[in-house]
């Protein structure tokens, strides 16, 4: 047995932790080995020196200090809301959620606005070329007819209102709103007429309040190439307050510009485009217009959609249809049975109802 091994065991030996075998072995060794004897003695002494170290007493303020700190630690645990808003730490949950919400709503708003801005852009482009509007004139004599009918029907309330200046002023104002001026007065009238039929609100005013109704009617009179003598009478009367009219014109020019940006004119432009065959989402080329319209009606009904509006022209029809857009595929398939489709790529399947325009052309 080497001295080193013995010495390593002596550490446990002096504490009485050596096994019985080890103990007798060490004691046997110690009898003959002076070196290990010294080692044992030194070790014993060392441990005894260490054991002379006495305990120190904590001061009274130690536990007080500890408890003060512990209480401080315990207090802020109460408020959950406080914790949520507490700066630092890594969490910042409220701030993170708020940021995400803002980002999401911004994206959503942007997405919903996007189509509008696009169409109004197109509208502005179109408005720069007035010839487009002139084309209308030839295309739709039918609607001019309608206009005349309405006019003749509304002639009765007109005289009563003749002397009412404010109404007339309003009429003038509206007249001034026309963007194209005197270049194509009949077209404008017809245009507006159709717009009235289109926009639900304005149609409502037609039906419900006669006093309001008289005003655009009057205006339409001016806009038509005047033929009857009583209309001639009217014109100078309305133009009597020249200064007023002038002022209004300046004002209305500004509003007209604004309108073009927002939606009013874009609607017009949209219509123009539709007539040109550009705007319609789907173009359907068929043999017979009449049959096709009936077919589409039944298809749409079958898909639980609705035909909102039908516009009839000489050689075409434009249908505005709403339907459940998850049924887009079905709709397209059915339409394909009727005629040749163009532009179905525009349609994508989304949730919710969707409005599309279908243009029907005769071969």
């Amino acid at each position: 047995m080497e001295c080193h091994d013995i010495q390593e065991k002596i550490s446990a030996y002096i504490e009485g932790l050596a096994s019985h075998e080890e103990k007798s072995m060490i004691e046997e060794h110690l009898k003959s080995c002076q070196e290990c004897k010294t080692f044992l003695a030194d070790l014993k002494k060392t441990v005894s020196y260490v054991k002379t170290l006495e305990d120190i007493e904590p001061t009274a303020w130690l536990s007080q200090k500890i408890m003060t700190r512990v209480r401080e630690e315990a207090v802020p645990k109460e408020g959950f809301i406080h914790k949520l808003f507490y700066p630092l730490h890594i969490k910042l949950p409220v701030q993170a959620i708020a940021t995400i919400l803002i980002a999401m709503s911004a994206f959503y708003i942007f997405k919903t606005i996007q189509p509008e801005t696009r169409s109004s852009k197109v509208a502005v482009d179109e408005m720069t070329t007035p010839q487009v509007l002139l084309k209308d004139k030839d295309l739709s004599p039918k609607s001019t007819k309608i206009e005349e009918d309405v006019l003749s029907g509304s002639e009765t309330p007109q005289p009563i209102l003749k002397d009412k200046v404010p109404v007339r002023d309003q009429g003038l104002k509206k007249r001034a709103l026309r963007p194209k001026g005197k270049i194509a007065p009949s077209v404008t009238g017809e245009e507006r007429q159709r717009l009235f039929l289109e926009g639900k609100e304005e149609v409502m005013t037609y039906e419900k309040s006669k006093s309001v109704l008289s005003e655009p009617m009057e205006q339409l009179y001016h806009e038509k190439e005047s033929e009857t003598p009583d209309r001639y009478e009217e014109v100078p009367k309305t133009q009597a307050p020249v200064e007023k009219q002038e002022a209004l014109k300046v004002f209305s020019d500004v509003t007209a510009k604004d309108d073009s940006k927002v939606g009013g004119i874009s609607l017009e432009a949209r219509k123009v485009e539709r007539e040109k065959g550009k705007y319609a989402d789907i173009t359907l080329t068929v043999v017979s217009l009449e049959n096709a319209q009936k077919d589409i009606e039944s298809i749409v009904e079958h898909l639980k959609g609705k035909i909102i509006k039908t516009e009839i022209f000489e050689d075409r029809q434009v249908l505005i249809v709403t339907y459940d857009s998850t049924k887009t595929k079905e709709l397209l398939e059915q339409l394909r049975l009727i005629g040749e489709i163009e532009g179905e790529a525009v349609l994508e399947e989304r949730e919710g109802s969707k409005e599309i325009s279908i243009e029907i052309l005769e071969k």
Partner: protein
Amino acid sequence: MKERGKKAIDEDTEIVSLCKKGNIDAFEVLVSKYQKKMLNIAYRMLGDYDDACEIVQDAFVSVFKSMKHFREEAKFSTWLYTIVVNLSKNRLKQLKIQGHREELILDNPVSTDRQQLKREPVSGEPSVLENIEKIETQEVVQSCINSLDYEFREVIVLRDIQGFSYGELSDMLKIKEGTVKSRLFRAREVLKKCLKKVLGDLY
């Protein structure tokens, strides 16, 4: 020994469960019960009274904060001592980095502050001379302990000064009992050399 420790019902179980419910008064009981031992461990580890007080406070605060996470696998007191040992070790490392402890190495071991004398309680009524001798010896021993590596220091403090069992040391330091034994052996060797150097002779 280890098994006995695990089986033994922790005397603090009740009060610890009160603390877990957020009872601060119960925690105060634990503080007053253990602060002395905690302070002594920290003091012998660090060799500095103010540092030791600081560490004991930190230890109790962190114990309070993590009370909920204390699963009663080990005795509460063992857990407590583990924390104070670890905090002391961290403090030593920090001081070493700052280079504050240069003077306390072997060559100049008896440089300890004289202030310490006042804090050492005097027991019994030995003669003044004996007292001074005793205090000086204690200083020497402490400065030798201060010269040890952390891993030697902690086994000496816990075993030879505080008198914990090998099993308890193994629990606190998360090392095997065999390792405790051999580490203790080497620690005593280093300490012995240091004492011999300072005192000339051990007798």
